[in-house]
């Protein structure tokens, strides 16, 4: 798989040469592969938000480099602009950024800035709205008449309408009710499957990440603590807890069972996997199975 984004020795310091100097990212290197869903986790203050703003050129590195499709995103002005359209960033609580009179115009804001034709814009708005499960009948409503979950999806559609090659979502499920969370996770998975777009999913929710992502990057104190598949990452329970993170409930129970001498794999992280392991042991006659 090709790397769509490469982060090379990236460093970012806020308030350099002031008493508030703080290095948010320190000599960080990793890659994002074309078409994957990458989970980015880390405790508050670990550098997640600073990092994602580097991935589409909202911040400029103090040192190091971010490459998009093999080219430094700050190479020239025109390319930086292209990257900003190619890497779509959905901030936390994006519904607070809705501002247009109708849902349609709000979703159309991005594509309009891309100077696309009227027809193309219209087509993209419909496509984006449908891809997050918004009915066409909602398009003429004011975004402010909608429920919280619907507003969140309008904000998401606004970025999808730009057809970004990489979609970065910062805490897309925060504050939603269980059904709303489930819906958003499904739309993200489907969008990835249907378009092949790369997704970067920033979250505190280990349960969400366990179910959705292909690979995880864990940040701790401005650096990368570990990268790997969910299986690899969640088997390092103690390191995660030390980094101020929680682990999925299934991984926690599996760990407690292992401590009691029951042979369950440390690589378990979903309820289904755990239920499978227990069923197998139960059918095979307990712990000597």
């Amino acid at each position, binding site marked *: 798989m090709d790397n769509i984004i490469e982060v090379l020795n990236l460093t970012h310091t806020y308030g350099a040469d002031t008493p508030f100097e703080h290095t948010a990212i320190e000599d960080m290197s990793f890659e994002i592969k074309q078409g994957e869903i990458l989970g980015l986790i880390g*405790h*508050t*203050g670990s550098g997640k938000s600073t990092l994602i703003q580097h991935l589409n050129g909202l911040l400029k590195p103090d040192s190091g480099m971010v490459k998009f499709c093999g080219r430094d995103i700050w190479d020239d002005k025109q390319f930086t602009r292209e990257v900003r359209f190619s890497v779509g960033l959905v901030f936390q*609580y994006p519904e607070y950024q809705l501002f247009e009179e109708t849902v349609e115009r709000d979703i159309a804001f991005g594509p309009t800035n891309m100077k696309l034709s009227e027809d193309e814009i219209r087509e993209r708005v419909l496509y984006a709205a449908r891809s997050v499960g918004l009915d066409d009948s909602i398009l003429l409503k004011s975004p402010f008449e909608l*429920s*919280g*979950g619907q507003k969140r999806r309008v904000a998401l559609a606004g970025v999808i309408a730009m057809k970004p090659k990489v979609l970065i979502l910062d805490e897309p499920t*925060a*504050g*939603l*009710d*269980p*059904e*709303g*969370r489930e819906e958003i996770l499904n739309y993200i998975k489907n969008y990835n499957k249907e378009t092949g777009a790369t997704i970067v999913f920033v979250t*505190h929710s*280990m*349960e969400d990440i366990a179910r959705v992502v292909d690979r995880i990057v864990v940040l701790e104190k401005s650096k990368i603590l570990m990268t790997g598949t969910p299986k690899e990452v969640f088997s390092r329970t103690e390191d995660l807890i030390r980094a*101020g*993170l*929680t682990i*999925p*409930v*299934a991984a*926690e*129970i599996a760990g*407690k*069972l292992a401590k*009691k001498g*029951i042979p369950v794999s440390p690589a378990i992280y979903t*309820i*289904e996997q*755990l*239920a499978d392991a*227990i*069923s197998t*042991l*139960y059918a095979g*006659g*307990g*712990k*000597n199975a």
Partner: protein
Amino acid sequence: MILKTENLEYSYTEGKPTLKGLNIEIPEGQYVAILGHNGSGKSTLLKHFNAILLPTGGKVYVSGMDTSNEELLFEIRTRCGMVFQNPDNQIVATITEEDVAFGPENLGVPNPELRARVDEALKTVGMYEFRSHAPHMLSGGQKQRIAIAGIIAMRPSCIALDEPTAMLDPIGRRDVLDTIAKLNREENITVLLITHHMEEALFADRVIVMDEGTVALDGTPCEIFAQVEKMESLGLTVPNTVKLMHTLQSRGLPADLNAVTTDKAADFIARILEDKIG
């Protein structure tokens, strides 16, 4: 009963009631979690308990005081304090201890006592060492604990919290929940907690599930979460421990839907596997 509603109705728009005749009684010192999907009426209900909203039908009583009696408003609001979702919307001062002092100062608490109340409240939420910090430099969880300190410095008998952990990271969330549990246990403060995280309701004595402006379910966390299908039909879910037990049950294995903590679940599973070989 510290809180009581009698046929409580509330409509934001006439003819479209958000609350449809609620009869709820909450005894002093109870820890109540309120669940329900978006738009089920949870927040509307909560806002009645300190008279931010007044019933459009029926009555709400706080410590026996009718919330629609304007003369009692001040007294009612000191009895029942509220904490909201977004920590940044609740901080009014530039120094932590001044922020905590804001409420009691407005109640006219004189100075030696004011100082004592603020210090005590900050110690209770574990934020005393940050008393002279600027609140905007604190983390979300710390800010929420400051907001809670501001409420308890007014010595309420009841705290109503509307999704206080929604914007917090796992550690901030845990610290806030621990603080709430401590207030309930040690100070006997009645707690009403709205949350979208089912795991958080496990700390409560009682769970009320709202749906379309009515009470759909009311019981202990174990009683409520054992009803997996019912909860799903209400647009909710159950804690992962219960989900595990439910999955085991559906596969014909023994299951204990009351094993709601990870420790209890692990103990139970170890036991059934050991029985199998023993």
